[in-house]
């Protein structure tokens, strides 16, 4: 493929693997968390983990925006979608994410007008084309997708469109990282940092990780050699007794991020006092809602949402997977009752979800262990 071959070169990968082996301390076990679901996807698509020594364990973080949505918020979205006259829009597979009482796809089958869009801008176009109906966009995602929602709302306001609403579920990445670092059941040695979130927020917001928690973090690109090099940079910091924010993805990420994007986010959104994350519980100042200047576009102001907290199914262990406490194949229903075709948990829905990444790329470690035993 054009432009990417050198970031997927097997020889370079083996050379990096040898360098990683040279910096690990014999007898020590390392736990490195890749924060972003995009990295999880890369690791299992290209077998990056197979190039690492056994003493280096990759732990999958909470960086898939769909996986961290609690079931109650899906139910809230379905409640809005079922309101008379509403056209409810969302990204593709969001329709298959299970709530406590079915999915958006089930609601569509029951008659709700639910449409797939590729961007908030598509949803705004639907609103322009249907001025007599309310059009609601189910907004999910971290700082990478929040600017898209923000700019779309600014356009809607400038155009005087009054039938466009956003059901806002945008979240920010730093608070859950703090929560994970405070978690007593997880001891991490370093982080592969989210490359594309950093194009917006920059590297500076991650400085608390080395300064307050004495752990290294390396902002990483998404090609297999990017991830491998980032793991090497983390382990080298540890070996040299250093602890800092490094930027492996300099070819894309400016250290200061995108100041214009940050201004847009600050104008359109404000932090919620707290927001529930699947598996992590309520985390302070981790979710975004529309600011008072954009309250007229807020679906939660326009409609009454139930706001009921729904417990995950008992068999589902998405929470422990999201915290990196267990591997996907250690979940009781992985690959049996829960598959990408019939997901029980969110981690099996999105291609960035850890369970789907394991399943789709044949990582049935449980079976492998049984065979070896």
């Amino acid at each position, binding site marked *: *493929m*054009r*432009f*990417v071959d*050198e*970031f997927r070169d097997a020889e370079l990968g083996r050379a990096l693997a040898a360098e990683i082996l040279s910096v690990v301390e014999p007898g020590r076990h390392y736990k490195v968390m890749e924060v972003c*679901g*995009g990295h999880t*996807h890369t690791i299992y*698509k290209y077998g990056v983990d197979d190039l690492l020594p056994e003493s280096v364990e990759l732990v999958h973080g909470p960086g*898939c*925006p*769909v996986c961290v949505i609690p079931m109650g918020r899906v139910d809230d979205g379905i409640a809005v979608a079922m309101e008379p006259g509403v056209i409810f829009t969302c*990204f*593709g*597979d*969001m*329709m*298959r*994410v299970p709530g406590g009482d079915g999915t958006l*796809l089930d609601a569509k089958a029951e008659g709700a007008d639910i449409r*797939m869009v*590729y*961007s*908030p*801008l*598509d949803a705004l176009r639907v609103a322009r084309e249907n001025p007599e109906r309310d059009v609601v966009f189910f907004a*999910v*995602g*971290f700082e*990478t*997708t929040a*600017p*898209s929602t923000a*700019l*779309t709302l600014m*356009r809607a306001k400038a155009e005087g469109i009054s039938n466009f609403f956003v059901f806002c579920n945008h979240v920010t990445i730093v608070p859950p990282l703090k929560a994970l670092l405070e978690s007593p059941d997880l001891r991490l040695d370093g982080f592969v940092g989210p*490359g*594309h979130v950093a*194009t*917006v927020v920059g590297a500076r917001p991650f400085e608390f990780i080395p300064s307050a928690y004495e752990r290294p973090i390396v902002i990483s*690109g*998404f*090609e297999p050699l*990017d991830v491998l090099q980032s793991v090497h940079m983390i382990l080298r910091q540890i070996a040299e007794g250093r602890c800092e924010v490094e930027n492996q993805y300099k*070819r*894309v*990420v*400016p250290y200061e991020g*995108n100041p*214009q*994007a940050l201004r*847009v986010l600050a104008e359109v959104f404000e932090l919620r006092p707290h927001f529930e994350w699947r598996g992590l519980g309520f985390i302070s100042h981790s979710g975004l809602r529309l600011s008072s200047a954009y309250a007229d576009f807020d679906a939660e102001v326009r409609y009454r949402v139930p706001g009921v907290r729904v417990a995950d199914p008992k068999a589902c262990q998405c929470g422990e997977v999201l915290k990196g406490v267990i591997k996907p194949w250690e979940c009781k229903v992985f690959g049996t009752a829960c598959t*990408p075709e019939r997901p029980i948990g969110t981690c099996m*829905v*999105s*291609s*960035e979800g850890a369970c*789907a990444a394991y399943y*789709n790329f044949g990582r049935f470690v449980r079976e492998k262990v049984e065979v070896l035993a």
Partner: protein
Amino acid sequence: MIETCNDTHCITCSDEGVAMRVLGLGSDGLASCVDDNGRWERIMTDLVSPVSPGDSVLVHAGVALVRLEPEARRA
């Protein structure tokens, strides 16, 4: 029929960065952009403006987040 995620793009959340080249600017302020696979899309470039035809940008969910230097398009 519901399109599902494939191994290069998560359509559940649309959360994937795609390098695109600017072809031209429309009167509505949106830029016509194309990726390396020939997929065409109208993009908001407010966060990296001004852009000109030939510029490369990293796009997330219909928004250009950062301008790419020529060598950055290599991934």
